[in-house]
């Protein structure tokens, strides 16, 4: 695992522990951008989207379009 990815991973774990949902939205969105593989990107974007919905995060709309464009969301 490259170092930047390990760092992101540990930030995500911390945000889970803190129940910091808007941070989780941002971190998963960031993680999604690092993936060239569409399936992996959509998996992570889904995580981001759900925490965005929960916390009413401004990224939510964008994540929704991304998923919808890939046929992953209604």
């Amino acid at each position, binding site marked *: 695992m490259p170092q930047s990815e390990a760092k992101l991973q540990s930030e995500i774990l911390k945000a889970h522990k803190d129940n910091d949902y808007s941070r989780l939205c941002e971190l998963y969105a960031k993680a999604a951008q690092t993936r060239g593989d569409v399936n992996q*990107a959509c998996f992570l974007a*889904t995580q981001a989207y*759900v925490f965005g*919905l*929960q916390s*009413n995060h401004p990224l939510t709309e964008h994540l929704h379009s991304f998923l919808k464009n890939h046929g*992953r969301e209604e």
Partner: protein
Amino acid sequence: MQKTDLTAVRQSVSLAKGLPNAHYIDPTVYQEEKHALLFDQWAGLSVAADVPTPGDAIPLTFLGLPLLLLRDREGQVRVFQNTCRHRGMILVEHPTKIEGAIRCPYHSWCYATDGRLVSTPHVGGPGQNTHEDIKRSELGLIEIRSHIWRDVVWINVNNNAPEFPVAMADAMERWKEFEQPLFHGGEDSRFNLEVNCNWKLAVENYCESYHLPWVHPGLNSYSRLEDHYNIEKPGTYSGQGTLVYRQLADDSGGVFPDFANLSSQWDSAAEYLAIYPNVLLGTHRDHAFAIILVPEGPEATIEKIHLYYPVADTDPHLRQKNTTQWKLVFEEDVFVVEGMQRGRHGLAFDGGKFSPAMDGPTHCFHDWAAQQIETKRQARHAAE
């Protein structure tokens, strides 16, 4: 199940007996009454003041039913079953502020505050959030029919009662002058009392004035028994009224403001209604209260008490004094409702003999209860 005999309860007050002991102590009858007297009716659950701003959400258990009381984004108070449509997980565990959607803690299905299912992550496999067999429009939260009146959140769990304004027309008509904004007094104006009795005993004690000189001597020193009158509206409510209500005043004679445009009868009158099944309301020229009786088993009840005023800003000192005064009165009633509960373990107690002059409102409630139970039994019988 052995059915209780309610014939004697349905007689006129001079001949009738009260409800049999089993209606206060038997878990099977408690279950029967849960449907006939509570889920089939408009029962009080909570007050809208408990969820003052959009997104406020409170999980509640009402007769074993897990419910979620919330105020949606548009400001409407709603009651949902607090159960996820996926695997039945409890959705909201603690009182919370919902910022966006309600996310189930199990697999993260998300619901809007109006109950719509808005996301089903990975439901079609990792990263695929749709599936042809998952029809979101059919999988929203189960909403419980609710209505707000006098800030009380009333629910009809079995979704079979007439529309609220029809069901409660008589009570609404009686107090139509008070059909105006009510302001909850805030933190100093709410308290709970936990009592070891069946919820019906709290109704029965509330709606009669017969006990006032003995149980509330302080109250009765200025409000004599003969200044009280019985109120009976068979099938809907019963209670008592007083003709000599005097406003609470602070040391310099300051009082609460009045509700607007009341007729002169309310200068010195006050009324106390038990709205069947489980809500006890009081109204006066300058304040009101609501008591919601939450049954916690055949022999336990939580009384949730809330005080209201005609305006948002009232003197905190006077408000505190009013709360303290009412709390004292309601606490004075605890030993009688708990004592009547224990008394109902007396095997030979036959439901009791009513005073035709003084116990009319209590009998009115029993007659209603017996009628509802009999109707339910007949419907069951017909269905079998």
